[in-house]
């Protein structure tokens, strides 16, 4: 194969991949502007009279506000807690020597490979036992637990890149250990914190299976609320897609904002003098 055809094949593959990624999102957005009848009559065409009815119905539903607040609380609190615990654990792993440090470091990463669905049943049983079901706190605890390993592992790498001399210079300059952590380490691992925040927030915001199992009428998050449009008598596609589109927005905005931190951190040449 010559270079031109190789290039053509590559572009073809990339285009197929892009269609696979963008296609479903496009369908979601298009469907959200259609009436239930249009959903089945217009197919995939762009030519239809769009309606905002689905969005109006979804947003002005009496429970939407509560579910939105639930999702925000779960997403933000879980992210903050994960970052807080994660950066301290990563610092400890990177800087203090203690028995079993290596084991902890590896176990941390391995935990990350367990799929969420696998732990749904045991989690439900344990959470029920400890009366953590049907509360936002229980859900937050779960998301912190599943996101912490990756966050620790990610931040561990960032802390290792900070030369110890910086901490020593700060100690001479008058920083106690806590201040060294706050004034030197945290600012320098900011790109890592941003990356971890993107990761954690998106999981906490989007996660469905465990949220479905662990919440009730008053503690539902938005993905669970969206599933209510799938009923015994049929699927309300328009509303489902409208809510799904709304759910997809905040992570997008958040990722965009946080990614700028990551990139500016990376281009700043990081930490090394």
């Amino acid at each position, binding site marked *: 194969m010559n270079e031109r055809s190789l290039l053509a094949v590559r572009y073809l593959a990339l285009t197929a991949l892009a269609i696979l990624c963008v296609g479903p999102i496009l369908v979601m957005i298009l469907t959200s502007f259609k009436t239930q009848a249009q959903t089945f009559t217009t197919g995939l065409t762009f030519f239809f009279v769009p309606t905002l009815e689905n969005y109006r119905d979804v947003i002005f539903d009496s429970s939407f506000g509560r579910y939105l607040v639930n999702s925000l609380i779960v997403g933000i609190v879980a992210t903050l807690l994960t970052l807080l615990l994660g950066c301290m654990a990563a610092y400890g792993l990177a800087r203090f020597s203690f028995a079993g440090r290596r084991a902890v470091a590896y176990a941390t990463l391995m935990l990350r490979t367990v799929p969420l669905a696998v732990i749904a049943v045991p989690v439900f049983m344990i959470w029920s036992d400890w009366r953590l079901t049907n509360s936002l706190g229980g859900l937050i605890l779960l998301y912190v637990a599943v996101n912490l390993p990756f966050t620790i592992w990610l931040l561990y790498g960032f802390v290792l890149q900070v*030369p110890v*001399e*910086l901490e*020593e*210079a*700060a*100690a*001479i*300059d*008058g*920083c106690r250990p806590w*201040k060294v952590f706050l004034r*030197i380490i945290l*600012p*320098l691992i900011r790109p890592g914190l941003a990356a971890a925040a993107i990761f954690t927030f998106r999981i906490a915001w989007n996660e469905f299976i465990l949220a479905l199992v662990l919440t009730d009428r008053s503690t539902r998050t938005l993905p669970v609320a969206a599933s209510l449009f799938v009923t015994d008598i049929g699927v309300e596609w328009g509303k489902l897609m409208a809510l799904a589109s709304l759910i997809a927005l905040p992570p997008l905005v958040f990722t965009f904002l946080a990614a700028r931190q990551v990139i500016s951190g990376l281009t*700043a*040449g*990081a*930490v*090394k*003098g």
Partner: protein
Amino acid sequence: MSAGVELIKVSKRFGNNTIVDGIDLDAAAGEFIVLVGASGCGKSTTLRMIAGLEAVSEGRILIGGRDVTVVRPDQRDIAMVFQNYALYPHMSVAENMSFALTLTRTPKDEIARRVGEAARILGIENLLDRKPKALSGGQRQRVAMGRAIVREPSVFLFDEPLSNLDAKLRAQMRVELALLHRRLGKTTIYVTHDQVEAMTLAERIVILDRGVIQQTGTPTEVFNRPRNLFVAGFIGSPAMNLFRGTLAASDTVELPGAGARIRLPQAVNAAAGKPVMLGIRPQGLLLGGADAPLRMQVKVAEFLGTETVLNGVLKGSGEALTASVSGEHGGLAEHEIDLSINPAHVHVFDADTGLNLIGTQSKRDST
């Protein structure tokens, strides 16, 4: 304000390894002390103990007469310049320099005054808003020094501050360091593996080997009266020539291989027949002369501008021999030449203990 630094029998162990072994050091207020030794001999560890970054296994450390052995680094009234500068990457030059002062809640105008003055002394006024990554190596070096100066400590600690610079900049910064010390008059403890830096900067040199002080003295003392073989080989460039020999008389050494008898500058107190090492500085060897006892097979001749360094071997014994002779003698490569000796540059060491047999100075230096 300047304060003396005193180390009393200070040792440091990591596990079973003794890295620093019973060091005694008494730096007077305002003195410039250089700790010199090969890589891994414990220089940094010693400096870090003085700074309070490393706990002391044994012994005591006094700064300005106050026992600071277990005092936190920021309470020791010291400032330290690290080999890799350790500038805070997320802070501007001005913030780097003022960080310590902001931590102690120094008034803003006072901070501005001190940062401004340090920046002026170091010629970095136009860099104050930059981040460290936008600076060259030499500029970072100055900022690191500025950060130390701003704190107005009693003692400056330097850990190989020039080793990351190229040769030309290093020579320039060396001069600036000397001027800075003269200007500020602060006690300085400076660590380096480079004996040229040690000789040019130090008021007193401390030579370390494997965690033990080999000699403490002024540059002249350690050069002219090295206490033992280690110091003799370490100080001076090119390194001192050392030949195996025996004491033929109290003032004569015989070099059996070369069949030469060398007169010592003075009689030594040791029995004839004693195995010794004869040391001759390359600068103490002269071309030709009436009584030229050493015959050298020159291999390489390096012309350095005012002198020529001849590298080769001593004929007869095959021991390595270096001579530094004035003038241009590049043509001597692969020739045999006769060398005479300036007795002032001759030393003799006990082959077993390594101690200088002429050294009467050992009593003075060990104080």
